[in-house]
């Protein structure tokens, strides 16, 4: 005889058990995450409430560091710059990634595997190496661009000058991450079970209709993830300007991007407290923007 317990009670127990299991599954990640990100973040929060001077030592600063940020032209300029970068580069890059993923998944591309690997390769290149290479291509007289322009009788565009610098950085970032995002979308496409396509074919759907009605919805959740992390990456833009600074020191100022500014504050200015406050402000701003962006892109399939 099966003992009679109420359905609700049984369901409640099951949910609690599942809740515990979920936390257990999450535990390894959370431990590593706490040690490496949460811990330093808490410490940074603590630091941001203090002030350390060469003359006078450490003193409590309260919200002073945070208030200072709002009237700091160096910070505001950097923020404006990355927001502008974000608005242009992220859509372009994700657009190309999407198209490339669809192209590769369509089966209508010649030498698919080759294209897939080669487009991803740039992601595998570390920043030091990428700069060496792009510095060569873009750099002034002896750069590839310069030599090609001279051969064609055209003036050399100053790709590392203040006018075109953001374009050049955008080029490098897109080059580095296009393949990466493409693979994310591609993996999502590959997860669509074959029968779904078969069913659509049986129903008489053509290529475009299959793409629109099946592939796009399949990609949307991963698009949400890609958008979030591209937003984070753009606001935190650091590697490319940092390495290009050696080639173009007058263009890439110490506050060129907010992340570069926080870095220089902490490392050449011994102002780790103000740096921490700025970083926390940046983090807050990033979350807001990322939330809005992925809501806009993925609606129902969003993460947050």
């Amino acid at each position, binding site marked *: 005889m099966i003992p009679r317990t109420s359905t609700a009670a049984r369901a409640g127990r099951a949910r609690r058990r599942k*809740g515990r*299991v*979920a*936390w257990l*599954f*999450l535990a*390894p*990640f959370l431990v*590593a995450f706490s040690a490496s*990100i*949460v811990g330093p*973040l808490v*410490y940074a929060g603590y630091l941001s409430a203090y002030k350390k001077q060469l003359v006078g030592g450490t003193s409590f600063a309260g919200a002073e560091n945070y208030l200072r940020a709002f009237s700091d032209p160096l910070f505001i300029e950097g923020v404006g710059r990355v927001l502008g970068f974000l608005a242009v580069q992220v859509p372009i890059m994700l657009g190309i990634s999407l198209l490339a993923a669809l192209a*590769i998944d*369509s089966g209508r*591309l*010649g030498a698919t595997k*080759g*294209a897939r690997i080669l*487009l991803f390769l*740039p992601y595998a*290149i*570390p*920043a*030091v*190496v990428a700069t060496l290479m792009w510095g*060569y*291509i873009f750099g002034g007289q002896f*750069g590839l661009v310069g*030599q090609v322009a001279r051969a064609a009788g055209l003036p050399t565009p100053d790709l590392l000058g203040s006018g075109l610098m953001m374009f050049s950085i955008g080029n490098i970032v897109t*080059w580095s991450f296009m*393949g990466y995002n493409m693979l*994310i979308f591609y*993996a999502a496409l*590959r*997860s669509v*079970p074959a029968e779904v396509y078969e069913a659509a*074919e049986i129903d008489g759907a053509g*290529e475009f209709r299959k793409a629109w009605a099946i592939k796009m919805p399949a990609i949307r*959740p*991963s698009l*949400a*993830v890609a958008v*979030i992390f591209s937003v*984070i990456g753009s606001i935190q833009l*650091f590697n490319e300007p940092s390495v290009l600074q*050696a080639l173009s020191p007058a263009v890439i100022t110490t506050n060129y991007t907010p992340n570069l500014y*926080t*870095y220089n504050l*902490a*490392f050449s200015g011994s102002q*780790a407290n103000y740096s*921490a406050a*700025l*970083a926390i402000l*940046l*983090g*807050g701003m990033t*979350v807001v923007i990322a939330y809005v962006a992925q809501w806009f892109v993925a609606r129902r399939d969003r993460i*947050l």
Partner: protein
Amino acid sequence: MATSVASTVPRTRASKPRRSWLLTVAVWTLVAYFMVPLVWLAINATKTNSDLFETFGLAFGDSFALFANVGNLLSYQDGIYIRWFGNTVLYSVVGAGGAAVFAALGGYALAKYDFRGRRALIATILGATAVPGTALAVPTYLLFAKVGLINTEAAVIIPALASPFGLFLMMVYAREAIPTALIEAARIDGAGEFRVFWSIGMRLLTPAFVTVLLFQLVATWNNYFLPLIVLNQSDKFPLTVGLSLWNSLANAGGVNVAEPLYPLVITGSLLAVLPLCVAFFFLQRYWQSGMATGSVKE
């Protein structure tokens, strides 16, 4: 009848589509553009120091010095490069392997369980990730110093094990690729939660797992900033930190160098990138494999 089979047969279509030349040309033009810097790297790894400064960047130099460069690279300073290479392999394999597993476990949990605090947890993780790591560098050093982790492998590996991006990716894929009905069916059959995760979840998540593994492998292999902060002994450096150091030395210009460093940096960079390419070639065939075929009746 519920069966899920991870087949190794590539996904087939009812009809085989025609090759599109337009698409092929468009994509391969993009590929060509993307390859220019890498071609530069390969060509310049064959040049001697004076050739580097005195010949055109995309043409070969007066002499083919690749093997000499590799030889110098591997023997400079008692083979420190080999040491760096070994470190990088260690950090990446352990870090990426662990990160992918943790992400799979956690992502599956976030996708397939609805528990209290789930949304708050996601928001917290995202919020913490949104803070730029550069400002966390000094606190990380101070914190790690307090617990004696400075100059240890753990200082590099532990942060590598936490991949918020991997976590969210796995969550998204798990939502898409694992039908809840399958899980319920398995539970009714009496399987424990972990078994359900292992035999059903992981099978279906294989392409996603491979993706995350590959990404983490690359990210950890190329990890630069944190190792730079927490390591003060050159025999623990990964390749990125070592090569960057040589690059700064080469740029310092006035320092007397018995062995010119630019060729070492370039050749070293080329060799540093090759293993990732190999890993990618090796792992990509797992994408051919399986999804659930034949499952629960709708």
